[in-house]
């Protein structure tokens, strides 16, 4: 057990994967000599050499496609895409090829590919580098979507993702890289279930990824105001762990979904729909959500803050449905 950063946890996970399985290699823009845009892969080139730590040209379509091919050919590639915004260039490879290959080949081919990408706002890198499109990927059958929000999940999710015979997309929120936390040396985590990060009885705050620390902060503030909030970290955005959500709502009877995506057509909308489908008769108040404002994420700090879910907004939403507004 040691206290490490999310960035370090991710690096340890990469190092473990590269050491355990010689089919594993890492590929992406600036991941080698530069050490990664967010310095996750710093030092790995020296340790594992250019065959396995491969700097890619600036073509997402090209190198993600190469990853799909390598996976079909028997390798276990880890492809890093700098941000989710840039992954749109590779959507054809991910959605039309990777996600569909098992189906289109009648089960003859699988694509054991892991794609890592940074997501989210809060670092003043402006609209083209700040969006949260996890919900788009969670829409696609054929891929598994993970959102590690704790140091332990950052450390532990990569290996089971590589063991999955189908494509897995891992979203790393840019606000989390400096997060520090306790971590076992080789934590065993699953890539199937949501986690209760804080138990409570009055309202369920359901979130994932970069919004988890804000939600935990909100839960602490609510506790001081006499509202006992339960925090659910979805962890796995596809397939969603509906049972954990339903169990929590059954207990608390109220839910706020916190999602950095825009509200229209968001993952939050999907979570709310499932609560309606499964938990309607358990509800004591309308399900509500805190999402990003429906605008490109602004560059200016105060405007960026205003556009994103924040603890104060979560507290206000929870108070409202608890009848304490």
């Amino acid at each position, binding site marked *: 057990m040691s206290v490490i950063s999310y960035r370090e946890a991710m690096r340890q996970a990469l190092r473990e994967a590269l050491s355990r399985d010689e089919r594993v290699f890492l590929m992406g823009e600036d991941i080698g000599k530069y050490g990664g845009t967010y310095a996750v892969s710093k030092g790995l080139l020296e340790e594992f050499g250019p065959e396995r730590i491969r700097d890619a040209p600036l073509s997402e379509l090209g190198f993600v496609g190469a990853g799909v091919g390598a996976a079909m050919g028997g390798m276990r590639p880890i492809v890093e895409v700098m941000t989710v915004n840039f992954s749109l260039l590779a959507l054809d490879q991910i959605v039309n090829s990777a996600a569909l290959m098992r189906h289109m080949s009648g089960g003859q081919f699988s694509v054991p590919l892991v794609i890592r990408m940074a997501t989210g706002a809060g670092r003043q890198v402006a609209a083209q580098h700040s969006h949260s499109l996890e919900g788009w990927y969670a829409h696609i059958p054929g891929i598994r979507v993970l959102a590690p929000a704790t140091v332990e999940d950052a450390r532990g999710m990569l290996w089971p993702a590589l063991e999955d015979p189908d494509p897995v997309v891992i979203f790393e929120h840019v606000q989390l890289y400096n997060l520090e936390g306790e971590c076992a040396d080789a934590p065993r985590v699953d890539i199937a279930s949501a986690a209760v990060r804080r138990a409570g009885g009055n309202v369920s705050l359901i979130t994932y990824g970069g919004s988890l620390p804000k939600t935990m902060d909100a839960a602490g503030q609510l506790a001081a105001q006499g509202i006992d909030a339960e925090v659910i970290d979805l962890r796995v955005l596809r397939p969603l762990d509906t049972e954990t959500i339903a169990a929590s709502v059954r207990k608390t009877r109220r839910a706020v979904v916190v999602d950095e995506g825009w509200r229209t057509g968001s993952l939050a909308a999907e979570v709310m729909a499932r609560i309606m489908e499964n938990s309607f008769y358990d509800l004591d108040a309308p399900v509500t959500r805190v999402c990003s404002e429906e605008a490109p994420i602004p560059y200016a700090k105060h405007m960026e803050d205003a556009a994103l879910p924040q603890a104060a907004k979560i507290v206000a939403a929870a108070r409202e449905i608890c*009848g304490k507004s």
Partner: protein
Amino acid sequence: MIEFKLPSLGADMDKGKFLEWRIKPGDQVKRGDVVAVVDTSKAAVDVEIWNEGTVYELIAEPGVTMRVGTVMATLLAPGETPEAAEAEKRTRPAAVAVSVQAEAVPVTAVAAPVVPGERRRVSPVARRRAAELGVDAESVAGTGPHGAVTLEDVERAAAATKAAPAVPAAQLDKQAEMRRAIAAAMSRSKREIPHYYLSERVPLQNATLWLQAENARRGLTERVLMAALFLKSVALACETYPDMNGLYRDGKFEPGASVHVGVAISLRQGGLIAPAIHDVQKKSLTQLMQDLTDLVKRARAGSLRSSEMSDPTITVTNLGDQGVESVFGVIYPPQVALVGFGRVAELACVVEGGLRIIPAVTASLAADHRVSDGHRGALFLAEIRRLLQQPETL
């Protein structure tokens, strides 16, 4: 057009079963007339009307359980024509629209006003739980967002009020109903009212001798009991200390205009009822005694009047017959004081420097500290003691 609505016949009542009409369309009624008989959890009550007019339309059907505030009948105001009433009726929402008097609900929240045509907000889980508990979710005060009724509201209502049963009222265990009603009122009292308690030994030598002399010259049916002296002394003391007499509502004390003393009467089948004798401070002992006898008889027969049920401004309880020395009562909300009398017994008392055996009683006071302080309470009890030393003035 005048609407006659089911009144609340006590703080713990939120619905009643309508039994029969005492009026028919065309009857002239005036203030104080008994117009209907309604069964509460405690007794069948003769309900009085407080308006003058001509009975126009009887709406309530006998045997139906209805919520407080339900329109039971309409009357024509003096001078009003049926045509005018019909015209007015058309402009009003359905005459059966109901509302709950806030004081009938023993929680702080006030029921959101029911807008005709708009569905009451009841959360799904609250609706489900209400069905399980047999509670009418529409009548529960809501504390959720936009006044919605939540699970907690339903469960509180079920616990605090007599849970409206899924079975017809006729099949209900009357005693269990009454127990629930008492439980609700007493729980509310202990939850909301910061009680303080005082007691005082009151010598009754003078009173006993005076009563003996009085009763010796009265006929058997006109004899007066000590209980009447107690009631009168309490009522007169209330005139001097008005902060013991009245109701505490909506965060403030409303002194009673007159002293209507609620008399705690235990019922033979179990349970308790505390109907009022009106204007006790103005009544002679003879009148009081008659009223008391009549009240006890009617309470036990189950034929009380609505004004007796809802009007008490202070309660007196007398457990002396049961042989206890003193009683520390629970205030009946929204009243603010309760005076208790224990057993009248021969006691060794020091009188004028000598030890004497004389009759005495322990009088106690439970009072609402939001309204009065111990100092006032002590003066009040001392005044009762003083009055009882001069029975001829009562």
